[in-house]
């Protein structure tokens, strides 16, 4: 077996608490499918037959019991539950399943929606015998206005600095602005080996990693690393150029300093494989070099290599903020070709449904409604004379007649009273909007969540 797929679905969705306080993030509906369906579909399309899914007990229960959550995948899902309150990072989760990992792993995050050609990432991993290979994409500006936010999105988020070499494939440097004190510090040894480095900041990390098995074993010994993206990846990128990884003498010392020495020694050992001398002979006789201009052999004699594939075009979103969620809802339908209107939905003839809207199963759309650029969830009832534009309506929502909903997100099981006028708001789960209310972003009650009692209009 070549690769095992691991899907990380235990995240909490801390940056969109408005949406996730009731529904766990992997089960948020995007285009009327649970969010977890998208990476699973990606893996299935590419040819995987089994996936190890690391998730919480709550999600596992909902997957097995809730009829609205249908996963529709033919692969065998091996669900591994972890405690929700254990605060495990992704690397901790990987350590947890170390026994199940028998070969190299492909780690995917549950909030990834992409149509990337995975073979590009895996080909880099295979061809260069890399330790790490990951996927990144050029970030696109989000064009939709986000409910609950005045004006455009602030760009105060911490930037990621990613340094690649001239070919654009080899990963030389990775750091987050939060970890840097004053400026970007690049070691001279890296500059000597790769005189031309391109540093990019506008990239979205897709959180899709191909890791060698030795890395998983290394994690088992190193309990201090808890996040793949935050700690493991920068560590591996730095280790490419560290002296200890490249010097052959380290192998002799291991027998004495197994416990004492830094764990990068263990990582080094497992990089070498059987038939090492044949591989060495091949490299010696091959007239190929990955760089030119200096006197060193291919890969500068380094054993640890990290590669990245940067997508220029195509869809690649990580649904971890509200803005991304809305954007994903717009674009996700392009990823699958099911009909826009579900066959089991009851749609009356005198309603106007735009071409880019999606109607979920068992919906009831009454007369004289107008639905444009929106997503209507499963089992939603929309009464007469309702205008829904640019919005996301989740499952089980009831919208009484005469409502006007624009640019909003209505979470599951909410009830919108008659004649309500909702513009750019987020209505939380199971909330009730009383009739004839008018709510816009300007009003103080812009994100209507958590309140047990219905709100009064101004």
């Amino acid at each position: 077996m070549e690769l095992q797929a691991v899907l990380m679905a235990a995240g909490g969705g801390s940056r969109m608490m408005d949406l996730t306080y009731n529904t766990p993030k992997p089960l948020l509906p995007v285009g009327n499918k649970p969010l977890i369906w998208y990476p699973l579909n990606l893996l299935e399309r590419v040819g995987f037959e089994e996936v190890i899914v690391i998730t919480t007990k709550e999600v596992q229960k909902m997957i097995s019991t809730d009829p609205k959550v249908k996963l529709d995948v033919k692969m065998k899902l091996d669900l591994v539950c972890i405690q929700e309150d254990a605060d495990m990072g992704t690397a901790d989760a990987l350590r947890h399943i170390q026994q199940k990992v028998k070969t190299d792993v492909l780690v995917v995050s549950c909030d990834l929606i992409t149509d990337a050609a995975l073979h590009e990432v895996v080909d880099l991993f295979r061809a260069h015998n890399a330790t790490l290979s990951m996927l990144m994409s050029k970030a696109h500006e989000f064009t939709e206005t986000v409910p609950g936010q005045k004006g455009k999105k602030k760009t105060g988020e911490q930037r990621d600095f990613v340094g690649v070499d001239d070919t654009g494939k080899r990963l030389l440097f990775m750091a987050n602005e939060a970890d840097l004190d004053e400026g970007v510090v690049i070691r001279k040894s890296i500059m000597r080996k790769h005189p031309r480095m391109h540093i990019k900041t506008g990239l979205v990390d897709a959180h899709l990693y191909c890791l060698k098995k030795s890395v998983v074993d290394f994690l088992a010994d190193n309990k201090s690393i808890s996040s793949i993206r935050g700690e493991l990846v920068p560590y591996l990128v730095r280790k490419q150029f560290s002296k200890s990884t490249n010097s052959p003498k380290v192998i002799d010392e291991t027998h004495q300093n197994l416990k004492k020495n830094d764990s990068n020694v263990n990582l080094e050992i497992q990089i070498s494989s059987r038939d090492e001398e044949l591989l060495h002979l091949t490299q010696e006789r091959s007239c190929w070099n990955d760089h030119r201009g200096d006197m060193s052999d291919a890969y500068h004699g380094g054993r640890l290599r990290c590669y990245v594939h940067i997508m220029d075009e195509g869809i690649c979103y990580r649904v971890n903020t509200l803005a991304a969620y809305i954007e994903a809802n717009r674009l996700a339908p392009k990823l699958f070709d099911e009909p826009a209107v579900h066959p089991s939905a009851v749609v009356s003839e005198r309603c106007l449904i735009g071409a880019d809207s999606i109607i979920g199963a068992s919906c009831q759309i009454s007369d004289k409604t107008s639905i444009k650029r929106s997503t209507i969830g499963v089992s939603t009832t929309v009464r007469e004379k309702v205008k829904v534009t640019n919005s996301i309506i989740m499952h089980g929502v009831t919208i009484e007649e005469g409502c006007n909903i624009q640019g909003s997100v209505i979470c599951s099981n909410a009830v919108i009273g008659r004649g309500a006028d909702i513009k750019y708001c987020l209505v939380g789960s199971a909330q009730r909007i009383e009739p004839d209310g008018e709510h816009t972003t300007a009003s103080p009650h812009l994100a209507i969540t958590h309140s047990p009692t219905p709100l009064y209009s101004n």
Partner: protein
Amino acid sequence: MKRESIVPAACAAVTYTVLCHPHHHTVFIVLTDGPGNKDDITRSKNEGKELSKEEKQRLRKQKKQQKKQKERKNEKSETEKEKTPVSLLPPPRPVATQKAPSALPAPASAPIPVPASAPFHSSPAPSPADKPAKSKAELKAERRARQETDRAAKQPGSSSSGIKTKVPLSELNPVVKRLPEHVQVDDPAVVKRLAKKLERQQIPLRSDYGYKVSLFSHLHQYSRKAPLTQQLSIPSTVIHPSIVRLGLQYSQGIVAGSNARSVALLHAFKQVIRDYTTPPNEELSRDLVNKLKPYISFLNQCRPLSASMGNAIKYIKKEISNIPSQCKEEEAKTKLLTCIDRYIEEKIVLAAKAISKYAIEKISDGDVILVYGCSSLVNNILCEAFEKSRKFRVIVVDSRPRLEGREALRRLVQRGISCTYVLISALSYILPEVSKVFLGAHALLANGYVMSRVGTSQIALVARTFNVPVLVCCETYKFCEKVQTDSFVSNELDDPDDLMVTRKGKTQLENWQDVSSLGLLNLVYDVTPPDFVDLVITDLGMIPCTSVPVVLRVKNLDQ
């Protein structure tokens, strides 16, 4: 007794000599080229016994072929039609795989009576089918010879006793061999057959890319941006992961060079053998060979196999089939792994050492040595010579688009050898300074031609003009039975987009596909005639180019 028979008009060029053997009362025909060489006839008289048996075998084969042709005519008329154009190819595509013409340019030395007589036989081979008009005496003689062969066949133990040379029967086969599929890409029937075969083996078909220059439209041309892995599932289940990795490394050029490719191939096969388990009710010797076939097709699709790889594969297949059936699986696997290690050690590593030893004798102090491209063997020789404190300097000649000379330059300068670097366009400028030329080879063909990186024949030609000795260094495992006299018949077309170069942000050939009259050609190999090569240094010693068939024959005998 000798009698000249009536020669049919069509065979006027060949004279027949009819001999009557005193003992057997057989009349058999010895076909000689030209006005009957006396030595030939005395020789054939002495070896009369052997020749008669070989004649008998030939006639037996003839009968079989006629029968087969009659059968096939009724069933598959298309394949017949395919075969006839194959056998009657126009001159620019000589039948490369037919062994017969190979012996013609090579001097028919005395201990090779069989291949020498094969060409004489190949011309009448289609003749029984094509030319019904024959002289009565000849027909009678043939019939009598056939009777004798039948009688001889009934006698036990007499058939194989007299044959001196243990040549495998396949060499006597007069039927035209099929052309390999990779040189018939413009024939849709062949492409369809290949597609069917790949579908059966569950391997994706790689599609050709871009406009092909018409002279080379019979070869594949792939694009590096469309790797074969696009169509494979990602945890590859059909093909072993190490083979997928190897195919990727071939197609991206990470493993390049004849020796490197063979070593990498054997390394991957070792992994395959390690991970192999015999399914129930199957024998390892047969099942493993069947398992390897789709892998080889896959590698062929990624990049056409080299001659050295072909020989390595033949060796492995032979080793696998020779495993006795009662051998246990673990034992068989370890045996195979040690065989592979031994092959690499003998044919590649030790051969390189032997070649360096011979070559260093040829390098004297004060020499100026010219090398072309990056040949692992030549680099090895130069580094060893430098370590043995020979004083020489090297001129590295390089050419686009591969620019492999840069890598050779780096390796030599790293050792401390003083080097000069030129492009091939400066060859005639630099040659007056050169004292010898060392060239590496991708393969040595059976007629003495050297197949090597494109540009090598130019170097040899210009060196010959300047009277500079040209020495080709090649291990014996790269000798192959193919015969080629030009670089068109069988070659490799690399990605044409490699020829595009970007200078100051502008790529002139960016839209070359839009220009209908423009074709980009990126050849990989060319053949150098033996007249331009002065010496071939192999692990068996230093031989002239024309002795390659001898080495091949000796190799076949060994096996």
